[in-house]
């Protein structure tokens, strides 16, 4: 274990070029996937929360099931879609970064939608009647509730990012873990493990955790900026 930590530190400090490239790629793929998943998923979740229809419990159950689909199955579905013999084969995205972004987006989209649905549902119970009484149409209610809960979306994004960057099954299947093209931290860990390089595998894992931690700290600092001082643990004023 200590050997791995020492190795991880060495990799970071010496800015080992291969590891840096792989880490950068991991961040980019997951950043894009998080962005797309939130842009699509959050309004979807908000709409679902405001829906008044008999189909609503069924849709909510379907969403819950989608959240629980294993990453490797999502990868399989993405692979079948993107394969040359598949419906999206003409795009030629297989074994590229674009394929990995698509696969990870498919993976975290339901998570973004479900979190948004829960947040907006709670919000709607407090403020929903007011909007209805004011005469707001459904699109306006979605928009205003999304704006009303704007402080929650950063947290939703972080949650999705964490899930996206940590998974290996989807990106392995549609990316192929190709050195120089589609290798990311998680697939590199899998590869090193399969070669018996356990210390290196662990070190890469530590690098991954370090990156996510660093990102969290940056976002925390940005949130607290208006208050001027160091980030307060009490959180923003209501």
């Amino acid at each position: 274990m200590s050997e791995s930590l020492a190795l991880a530190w060495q990799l970071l400090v010496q800015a080992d070029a291969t590891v840096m490239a792989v880490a950068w790629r991991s961040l980019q793929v997951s950043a894009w996937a998080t962005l797309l998943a939130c842009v699509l998923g959050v309004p979807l979740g908000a709409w679902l929360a405001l829906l008044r229809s008999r189909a609503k419990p069924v849709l909510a159950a379907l969403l819950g099931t989608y959240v629980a689909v294993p990453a490797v199955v999502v990868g399989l579905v993405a692979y079948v879609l993107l394969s040359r013999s598949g419906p999206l084969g003409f795009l030629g995205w297989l074994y590229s970064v674009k394929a990995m972004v698509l696969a990870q987006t498919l993976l975290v989209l339901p998570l973004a939608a479900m979190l948004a649905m829960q947040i907006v549902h709670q919000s709607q119970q407090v403020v929903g009647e007011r909007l209805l009484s004011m005469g707001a149409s459904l699109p306006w209610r979605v928009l205003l509730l999304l704006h009303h809960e704007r402080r929650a979306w950063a947290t939703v994004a972080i949650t999705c990012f964490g899930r996206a960057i940590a998974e290996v099954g989807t990106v392995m299947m549609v990316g192929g873990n190709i050195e120089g093209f589609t290798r990311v931290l998680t697939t590199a860990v899998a590869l090193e493990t399969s070669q018996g390089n356990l210390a290196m595998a662990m070190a890469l894992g530590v690098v991954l955790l370090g990156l996510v931690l660093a990102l969290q700290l940056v976002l925390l600092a940005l949130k607290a900026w208006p208050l001027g001082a160091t980030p307060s643990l009490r959180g923003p004023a209501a």
Partner: protein
Amino acid sequence: MSALTLHQVQVAYGKKRVLDVPELQLHAGEPTALVGPNGSGKTTLLRLLHGLIAPTRGQVQRPPVPVAMVFQQPAMLRLRCARLLWLAAWWGSGSVRQAGQQSAHWLQALQLQEVAQQCASQLSLGQQQRLALALALAKQPRVLLLDEPTASMDAPNAALAENTVRQFIQHTRPVWLVMSSHHPQQVATLATRVLHLDRGRVVADERPAPQAEASGLS
């Protein structure tokens, strides 16, 4: 002429019957007050009249006119007051120009100019209730429903709110006003008909003689 009526209406949540009104007709130009203990069904009746809830049984007939309501809990959005008011006015009138006029008018009438650029959810409770009234009136409603509208207001603000409502119903025809209140004075000044509710039923329906202070109501 179109009426606001309830016919054989019951509202129940599961086994618990919250409202039971066999027959009720509300008339335009006859401001009506709902009085009764907490839990007697006043809020339910108001929400029913608005159309926010549907009766478990029976029919509610509403005139095809805009309806606005002031809720017991203000529950404001995290949005600037002026913008929120403008939206309410815009949705009520459908015209951008009228929206500007209405929102400016009610901001002034309810003395909200100082807080106009502040976030609505960060106002004091009394200010939020004034804003709630402004939002309702900006919609240019013909049916105005008020649920304890001055509950969190101090005396001067409450008087301002009452005057505003009174002026509104004087200048708007036809208009239905239904309000619930715990203040006998408020009821006496504003209403010409008083419905007493108890445990979901209308137990009394009075038309008290107009008082000397209640000038200006015709």
